[in-house]
C-alpha cells in the first residue's frame, strides 16, 4: 500500500505538534471507504493509539468523547469481550484497547466491568498464560494484556497472578531477555510484555536487571534508533518497547538519549504529520503513538508524561490506579 514518500526531509529537529494532531484527527473521517474496511481488524486499537497520542501531545479533547464511547460500546460482544469493530469476533487485544480507551476518557462506568473482567479471566490457561480468544493462541502479549486491563478494572483477584508470574519467569532466557513462551527467542516487544506484567504484579525484583539492561541497551544502533533483535533494522516502535522496559528496570540512562530523540524526530512527516517506522517511510498512527511515547519517556519538552507500564498518560493511570 505504501508508495515512495515524496515529502520534504525534516529540516529542523523539532516536534511538529499541530501537524500530528491534524493527522490523527483526520484519520477517521472517511468511513465506509476501502481504507476504512482494510483497517477494520484493528480499528479499536487504532482509536487507542490515536487517543493516547493526542493526550501526550496535550490535546485530550481533540477526539469527540461521546462518539468514542459510542464506538467502543458498539464493539462489546455478548460474551463480555470486545471486537476490533462491530461485526467482528471478540479478542483480548481489542478488549485491552477498549478498556484503555474508556479509562483514558474516564468512561469505564459505561460498561459492565464485571462481565468484561470475567471474560478476560476466563482466558487464563492452566499454566498461567492467557489465550487471545476461545481458539487458544497463547503468547505473553496476551498475559500482559490481561494484567493490564484487569488492573485498570480493579479485578486482579479473578485470576491466578502467581501462576501468571511463574509463567513469565519461565520465559526468561539465558541471554537476559524474554520471549513469547518458555524457550522462545528474546524479542524487545515480548520483553516489554513480560517486564510490564511483572511490574503490574509487583514482582519486578525477581529478574536480573543488569543482564536484561545489557540486552536492551544493545538494541541501539549507530544512527540512534533502536531495533527489536540482533541485526534487525531500527524501528520507531522499538523506541517504546525497549525504552519502557529500560525505564521499568531503572536503566533509562543506558542508551544514548540524544541519539534516540534525533532518530525519532527524523521519522516525522513534516508536511502531513504523523511518524513512520524509519525516516522517509509512510507514516501511520501506530508508529506515531510509540514515537511520541518514546519522546515523552526521554523527557521531551512539551509532551505529557507517559506511564511506561501501560503506555497511557501518567495522569490517567494515577487517577485509575490511585498511585
Amino acid at each position, binding site marked *: 500500500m505504501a508508495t515512495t514518500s515524496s515529502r520534504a526531509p525534516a529540516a529542523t529537529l523539532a516536534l511538529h505538534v499541530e501537524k500530528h494532531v491534524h493527522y490523527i484527527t483526520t484519520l477517521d473521517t472517511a468511513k465506509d471507504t*476501502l481504507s476504512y474496511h482494510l483497517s477494520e*481488524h484493528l480499528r479499536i486499537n487504532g482509536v487507542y493509539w490515536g487517543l493516547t497520542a493526542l493526550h501526550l501531545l496535550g490535546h485530550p479533547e481533540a477526539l469527540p468523547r461521546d462518539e468514542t464511547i459510542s464506538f467502543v460500546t458498539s464493539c462489546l*460482544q455478548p*460474551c463480555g469481550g470486545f*471486537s476490533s469493530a462491530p*461485526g467482528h469476533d471478540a479478542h483480548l487485544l481489542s478488549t485491552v484497547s477498549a478498556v484503555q480507551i474508556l479509562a483514558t476518557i474516564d468512561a469505564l462506568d459505561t460498561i459492565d*466491568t464485571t462481565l468484561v473482567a470475567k471474560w478476560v479471566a*476466563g*482466558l487464563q490457561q492452566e*499454566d498461567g498464560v492467557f*489465550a*487471545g*480468544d*476461545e*481458539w*487458544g*493462541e497463547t503468547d505473553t502479549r496476551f498475559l500482559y494484556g490481561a494484567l493490564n486491563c*484487569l*488492573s*485498570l478494572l*480493579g*479485578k*486482579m483477584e479473578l485470576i491466578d497472578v502467581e501462576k501468571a508470574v511463574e509463567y513469565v519467569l*519461565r520465559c526468561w532466557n*539465558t541471554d537476559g531477555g524474554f520471549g*513469547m513462551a*518458555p*524457550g522462545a*527467542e528474546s524479542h524487545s516487544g515480548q520483553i516489554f510484555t513480560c517486564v510490564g506484567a511483572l*511490574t*503490574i504484579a*509487583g514482582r*519486578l*525484583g*525477581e*529478574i536480573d536487571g*543488569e*543482564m536484561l539492561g*545489557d540486552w536492551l*541497551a*544493545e538494541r*541501539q*544502533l*549507530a544512527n540512534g534508533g533502536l531495533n527489536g*533483535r*540482533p*541485526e*534487525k533494522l531500527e524501528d520507531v516502535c522499538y523506541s517504546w518497547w525497549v525504552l519502557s522496559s529500560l*525505564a521499568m*528496570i*531503572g*536503566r533509562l540512562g*543506558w542508551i*544514548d538519549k540524544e*541519539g534516540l530523540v534525533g532518530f525519532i524526530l527524523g521519522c516525522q512527516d513534516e508536511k502531513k504529520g504523523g511518524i513512520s517506522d524509519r525516516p522517509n517511510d509512510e507514516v501511520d498512527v501506530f508508529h506515531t503513538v510509540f514515537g511520541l511515547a518514546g519522546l515523552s519517556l526521554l523527557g521531551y519538552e512539551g509532551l505529557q*508524561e507517559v506511564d511506561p*507500564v501501560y503506555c497511557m498518560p*501518567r495522569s490517567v493511570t494515577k487517577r*485509575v490506579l490511585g*498511585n
Partner: protein
Amino acid sequence: MAFSHQNYQYLTTLLSNLKNPIDITILPDDYAAILWEPPHLGIPKRNLLFAFKVAHSLFFSDAPANVKFNASTILILTVSEHPTAINFRRRYLLGVVGSGGGISDAVSGGENTPSDAERLLSEGMQSMNLLEVSPETELNLTTSFLTSQMAKHNKSPLIWNWRKWLLEKFTGLKLGGNAATTTTGAAAVEDWVQSRVDEAEESEATAKNMSRLKDELKIVRCSGSLHRGNYYAWSYARDLVRSQPCILLSPSREVQFDLQLTYCRTNPSDCGGWSFLSFMSLHCHDDDFREGIITQLLRHAEFLPNNVSSRGNRRERAGEAFWLCVRDIIVGMEDRDKAKEMKQRTWGKVMDGLVKEDQRLEKCIWTPWLSGRALWKEKTMEMTQKRIQARVEETEGEKAVGWLERFWERTQRAEGGELGGGWESRESRESGEKWEGGKGGKR
C-alpha cells in the same frame, strides 16, 4: 462493479479446494491482469483490492455460509491479521468434518457448539457449488500463505497459530508446547528420557508424526528464508521439536543440525535461524555433540566479517546473531568445565580475528564482545563506554564475574535478589519518593 465481481470469482475459484499449496505473489499495478501459471499465482494489487470490496460486503452480510467461506479467503489474502475470517473458517471446517465443539465453550458463549456447526453444514450443503473443504485443503492454503513472499502473511502469528490448530485438531500432533518443561538441567534430561520411553510405546504413530514434523520444519525454513527474523515461524519450530523431542536423537539429529547449519550459513544475518540453532543445541543433551557444533561454527567465523546482510547496510553488526548463538550454546552446556574451556577457545578466536580493544571488556559482566564490536562505528563505542562506566560505578568497583558464572548464579535462583532502582514518575522524582511499581487497580 462487474470488474470487482470478476476478480472476486476468479480468485475464489483458484484458491478453493487446494489439492496442493500454490505460490502467491502480489504484483505491482503495472500488471493488467491476474496471472495464473500453476502453481504460480500473481495478483496485481489493484485487482486484489477490487476483490476485497466484494468479499467484505459478502462476509458481513446474511449470505449463506459457503459464500462467506469463500469471501473469508479473500479477506485473509488481503489482510493477513483477520481473526474473524480465520475463526469463521475454523467453525465451518468443524461443521464439515463434524468434530463439533470448540476449545473453550465456557469462554465462547456457545458460538462453536455442535448445533451451530450442524447449522453451518446444512447451510453450506444448500449451495449448488459444494466446497470440498477439508483439513488438507486448509493446510494447503496456510502453506501457501506461510511460504509466499507476502511479508505480512509469512510471519503472521494468526496464520501460524491457525496451522498449529489444524495439525493438533486433525493429525494427532500435539504442538501445545510444554510450558512446564525446563530448558536445562536435570529436569530437562528427565523429560528427554521419559520422551524416549513414550516414543517406544507408540512407534507407529511416532514414525508418521516424525515424517510430518520434518515436512513442517521444511516449511519453517522456507518461510524463514523469505522473511528474515520470522519470529512466529521459529516459535512454531520450537513447538514442533518439543512435540517430538526424539527428533534431536541420532540419526535424525545429525540431519536436522546439518539442515539448520546450512540455513544459518545461507542466511547469516537471520537472528531467528541462529536462535533456533541454539535452541536445538539446548535440547540435544549431549555436550560432546555441542562441542562439535561450536567447532564447526568457529571455523565458519572466519568468513563472518565479509558477510553483508540482505539489506546491504548491516556491516556494522555483521555476525552479531552468530556470536550470540555461539555464546548461548556454551551457556547451555551441562558440563561446566567443558563450558569454560569452550569459552576460552571462543574468546581466543574473537581476539584473533578482531582489532584489540579496551581490555576492560574482558572484565565486564556483559557479553557483547562476542558481537564483533570492532566493526562498529565510533559513536557506538562511545555509548558502549558510557554504559560500562555506569555499570562500574553502580556496582562498587568492577566485579570480575564472567558471564558464564553469572548465568549459573541466576539459574540457582539466588533468593532475595534485589533489582535496585525502578521507574520514577516526574512527581516522585521531585518529591524524592521512589515508585515501586503498579499494584493493581483500586476501583
